[in-house]
Structures are given as C-alpha cells and as structure tokens.
C-alpha cells in the first residue's frame, strides 16, 4: 500500500502490508545453515539446498548403455524449481585392449522429473587403460518442480567387450 497523510493505518493493513510481506523475506524463510535463496517467480523466493554425495569404490561395467554399478550412485535428492546446477565427477579407466573405446559417466533424474542419462551431459574419457578424473557441469532446465533425485550412471562406448573402471565418483547438485 501507499500511505496517505491523515489516513488511519488499520490492523488489517499492518497485517497485510507489513507482517505478511515480512513473512515472505529471506530471514522469515531461512531454516537450515548452508542453504541459499533463489527466486521462484514474481515476488517469490525459496530456500534451496546444495547437496553432494560420493562413492569412492572402484567398480566396473562393460555395458554399452547407461547402467548402475554394483554400488548404485552416488545420488542426491533435493527440492528444486525448474532448474538445478549439476556437477558430476569421476575417475575413469578404459581397457588396455580397447584403446579407442570411450568411457562415460552421466546422470539421470527421477522423482518429480523423469530424465534418463544422456551423452549430452556426460564425462567422456578416451585414453584406453589410462585414467583421468574430471568433472562436467550442467545447468539442468525443464525439471518438474518438486523432489528430484539425481543419480550417476555409467557406460562404455560402442564396441566395448571388456570392463571399464569407475571410482571416486561425486555428484553435487545446487537446487534452483
């Protein structure tokens, strides 16, 4: 509201324009240390989580389509709007006899959103039996707002007949 000289400021106006607006601010909505705030639309904000998970175990697959390893994940579940920043990291090794066959790590989304792992957001290693550790970051858009689980998935390139190795696997999701 815009105040006018000599107008009575009513309790109802205080409740609408002061109390209720203050209840839409960050300190009113802040609950947990380590979280941050994002805009969710016009005049609306939400507290969001940044979550990370790691699986250090060295495991293998020879699957040429995205799959879980013996230890599924890592995975995180966060409440998001329609976007999230996702960083995946893995140390990956191909096979000495398959020097030109790639090794891939990506992620899928489940829960409110259903989105399969794709090469478009994958880490790719193409150095035979040598192992590199790097990350890939994505601004994931088109999510369905709500509780979403982000899970790393793994595969080998076309022609793989031997197991490729994955370890020190980490996913970090910054919910937006």
């Amino acid at each position, binding site marked *: 509201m815009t105040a006018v000289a000599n107008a009575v*400021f*009513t*309790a*109802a106006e*205080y*409740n609408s324009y*002061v*109390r209720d607006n*203050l*209840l839409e*601010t*960050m*300190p*009113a909505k*802040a*609950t*947990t*240390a*380590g*979280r*941050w*705030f994002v805009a969710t639309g016009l005049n609306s904000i939400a*507290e969001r989580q*940044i979550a*990370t998970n*790691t699986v*250090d175990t060295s495991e293998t697959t020879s699957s040429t389509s995205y799959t879980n390893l013996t230890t599924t994940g890592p995975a995180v579940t966060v409440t998001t709007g329609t976007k999230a920043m996702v*960083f995946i*990291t893995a*140390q990956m*090794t191909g096979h000495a006899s398959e020097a030109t066959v790639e090794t891939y790590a990506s992620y899928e989304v489940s829960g409110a959103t259903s989105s399969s792992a794709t090469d478009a957001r994958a880490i790719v290693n193409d*150095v*035979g*039996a*040598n*192992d*590199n*550790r*790097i*990350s890939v*970051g994505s601004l994931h858009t088109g999510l369905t707002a709500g509780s979403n689980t982000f899970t790393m998935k793994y595969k080998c390139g076309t022609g793989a007949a031997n197991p490729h190795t994955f370890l*020190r696997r*980490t996913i*970090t999701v*910054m919910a937006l």
Partner: protein
Amino acid sequence: MAWTAPMTAVATQVWTASAFNTHVRDNLNETAPAKATTDGSIFTVTAANSINDAPMLQSTVAASETTTSTTFANLTTVGPSVTVSVNTAATVIFGCQMSNSSVDTTALMSVGIYDVDTGSELTAPSDTWCQQNDGSPANSVERGMVAHRFTGLTSGSYTFQAKYRVGAGTGAFSERYLFVIPA
C-alpha cells in the same frame, strides 16, 4: 538485532514505537537488501531466520610451471588461492591444463583448506577430490575442471589453495583457476 516473528496487529491496539522498532525496523534490517554489501554476492542461510551476504571469489594463475613432487606441493607461483568466509560448507570449482612428460603417468591438481592467519593446513589436498590426467602419450595435454563441496566446516574465514603432484615424471600445469561458492 535478530529476527522476530512479526506481530499480528489487533484492531484498536496501540501501535508503539517499541513494536515498530522490533517488528519493522529490526526485521527489515535482517532482510537481503539490508545485508547486501558486495556486487555479485549470493545470500546464504547461517541459521534459522538468519542470512548473510556471501561473495563468490575466483583466483587464477596462467603461468605454466612444473613439478616432480609425488606429494601435493606448491608450484613456483603458489596457488591459485581464495580467502573467503563460509558458513558450514563451500563448493569449490577448480581446474587447469595439465600434462606429464612420461607416458602413462599421472598429473594431479587438488585443493586444501588453510588457516587464514597461520597458513597451517586444516584439510589436506587429496586424490579423492582432484583433477587427474593420466598422460598417453607423453606430454598429452588436457584441460578440465573438478567441482568439490567441502562440508562440516565451522563458520569462519578460510583460504582454499590449489596444490599439485605427479605419479612420476614431470607434470606441467598452466591456466590454473579456482573459485569458491560459499555455500
């Protein structure tokens, strides 16, 4: 002053200066515009009903330098490093262009956490959160990045600094960067 749940006004109730100061002035002083200090900062939660302005900072070192150290160590030009205030966690994004003079031999970059005043190591760099290139052939160059979130921190100011090592041979590192999201 801390946040106070805004009072609910009642018709004909006297609206006192004290009530204004507690429920309007002090609460407005806890909101983002009151806390904002630095362009490009984000707002993070420090506790229930409490936020702060948290700058994101980056450091870079372009110079190509080498090491033969098999344990994490500084290069001739130390860093990059960033000193930043965090709450309970920090997301660090770092990377460089790296190679190794020997075939099938690793070059690694990682990040440690150091005391701002004494420089003492609080969290050592680790292979667990490193960028690694396992060169094949020798001197093959790769440029990449790693994202790592440090959790369980005690609220305060820390220096995040990159360090380097090799499995063997001579590692070369250039275009080194590190930035910290204090959340």
